């Protein structure tokens, strides 16, 4: 198994090498993903290829292990070091396990960044988060407000009362609530990321607030359950379910009309931005706190004290694009 894996990696890498031979002057940026064959990362590769095309003198090597293991990624990274790539952009299977291999890469002058799933600070020069809590908090209420020009009552269906991510997002949402005139957040309920409890909580909201216009669910289990409950209650068109969800999970509910739009990161933009940042670093830009790195059409990313940056607002999916992305992730 191990030999087979090593063989596959070597073959993939040498194929990429041969392709590169024709353009020896090209800068080689390796996009290392958690595992090959995952729709989300295939989409990120699509974005990286787009960036390469735009930049002209860049060759993107899309690679990764066949299963989501840190050992597999270490093998891949070692062979990339041997090939002398110019940059490695990695979505890590383990925060710490990759650090020694990546440190070795940096010692050889290879620029290392992590994206999507980060590496510990020592193992990379910067980390690109798909988004940030303030951006997410703003986006989820904006999604609700966009469908409610005259304002109205909205409620939040969260995961558990103690889940950190959701609590931070909801807090950030409440901070910017004043920017959306007429939007009243009437309640926050907790579905515990269980389909049945989220469904029941949604039914409770529908009963308790007859004027409810939107339900914001910043959790993928919750948003699906809420959409189903709204459909079953015959409230499609009256109550809009929105929040954070995956296109493949939400496609049916967008079609049914219970959800007009929802958001999550766009993997294409993520792959694109990671490639652009890697290129910027190869070109001499320095990743340090406060620095701004260029991301092409996505603008710039500003690094915080941990050398982390947030790419953009979560990407909005609606009836126009959800079918297309549902095939990806």
């Amino acid at each position, binding site marked *: 198994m191990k030999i087979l894996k090593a063989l596959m990696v070597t073959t993939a890498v040498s194929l990429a090498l041969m392709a590169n031979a024709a353009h020896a002057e090209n800068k080689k940026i390796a996009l290392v993903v958690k595992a090959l064959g995952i729709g989300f990362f295939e989409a990120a590769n699509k974005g990286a290829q787009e960036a390469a095309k735009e930049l002209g003198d860049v060759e993107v090597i899309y690679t990764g292990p066949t299963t989501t293991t840190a050992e597999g990624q270490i093998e891949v990274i070692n062979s990339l070091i041997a090939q002398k790539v110019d940059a490695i952009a990695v979505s890590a299977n383990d925060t710490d396990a990759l650090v020694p291999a990546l440190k070795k890469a940096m010692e050889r002058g290879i620029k290392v960044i992590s994206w999507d799933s980060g590496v510990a600070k020592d193992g990379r020069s910067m980390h690109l988060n798909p988004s940030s809590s303030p951006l997410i908090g703003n986006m989820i209420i904006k999604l609700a407000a966009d469908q409610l020009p005259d304002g109205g009552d909205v409620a939040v269906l969260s995961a558990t*009362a103690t889940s950190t991510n959701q609590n931070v997002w909801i807090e950030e949402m409440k901070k910017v609530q004043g920017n959306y005139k007429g939007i009243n957040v009437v309640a926050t309920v907790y579905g515990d990321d269980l389909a049945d409890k989220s469904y029941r909580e949604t039914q409770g909201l529908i*009963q308790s607030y007859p004027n409810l216009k939107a339900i914001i669910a910043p959790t993928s289990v919750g948003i699906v359950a809420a959409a189903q409950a709204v459909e079953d209650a015959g409230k499609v068109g009256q109550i809009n379910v929105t929040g954070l969800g995956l296109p493949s999970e939400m*496609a049916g509910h967008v079609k049914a009309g219970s959800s007009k739009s929802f958001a999550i990161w766009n993997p294409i933009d993520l792959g694109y931005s990671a490639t652009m940042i890697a290129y910027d670093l190869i070109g001499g830009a320095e990743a340090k706190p406060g620095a701004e790195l260029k991301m092409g059409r996505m603008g710039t990313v500003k690094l915080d004290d941990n050398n982390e940056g947030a790419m953009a607002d979560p990407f909005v999916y609606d009836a126009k694009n959800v079918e297309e992305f549902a095939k990806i992730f």
Partner: protein
Amino acid sequence: MAKLLKNREILLVIAIIALVFVIALRFPGFVAPANLARVYNDTSILIILALGQMAVILTRCIDLSMAANLALSGMVAAMINAAFPGIPIPLLILTVVALGAALGSINGLLVWKLDIPPIVVTLGTLTIFRGSIFLLSKGAWINAHQMSDAFKALPRAPLIGFPVLSWLSVLAIAAVYILMTRTPIGRAFFAVGGNPHAAVYTGIDVGRTRFFAYCLSGGLAGLSGYLWVSRYAVAYVDIAAGFELDIIAACVIGGISIAGGIGSVGGAVLGSLFLGVIKNALPVINISPFAQLAISGAVIIIAVAVNARTEKRKGRVILKKAEAV
């Protein structure tokens, strides 16, 4: 004895009515007939599962793997439907019931033939079933748009004013009631749990009886698997995680003795309804989510405490008689 059981069920009915009344004070809309029908419908799956668990508990066993069995059967139902949308739904339901029963029979065989304690067996199969779902689905979800419309429509289709889901639970109650009161195997469940040694002398095979109890609970879990997945229109590894505790709680509240031999179909149904009313009331009476957890827990402990008291009293009476002799 029969009088005591009857009393307990009547007590439970009174408790449920009182509970609904108290909730109505805070949220009047709760007692609207349409809402009560909705609460029953929401509790239907729990009722079906509690009936199966009751049979197992009666034989002095326990089935912790029911929710995992539900999730695995539900995932299989969803995957079959996604791959072959043309398969008629009744056939699909029969398939998952058979699958659930087969999974339950694994529990039954281990308890019967290898004599492993039921709690250990079902704790093991619980994790095995959950793991199998992951292996089958590779962790991916089966989503609403991958399921056929017929697959999703059946439980919610109205039939004489109520959704099919509600009718299915009524059917399950009737079937299990007849099984429990009118068939030899149903009576054997009680005999095995009440006094296994005496049961052997009357010619009942204790292990075989327990095996059938597990098949019954498995089959009902399989049925619930389809119902759950189509009701919430999503299937993934963690569906109904932790639900086994709700099922056992419903049985305990319904007066089914964990020590075996005592219980009734009515008790299981009322226990489920009691829990169902609480689950549906908590979202509308507007109290903190932390208090909600505490309330659910407190109710279960009170129910167990009441049961323990009644059983102890029964013990004392027998001892007094023995002393007198």
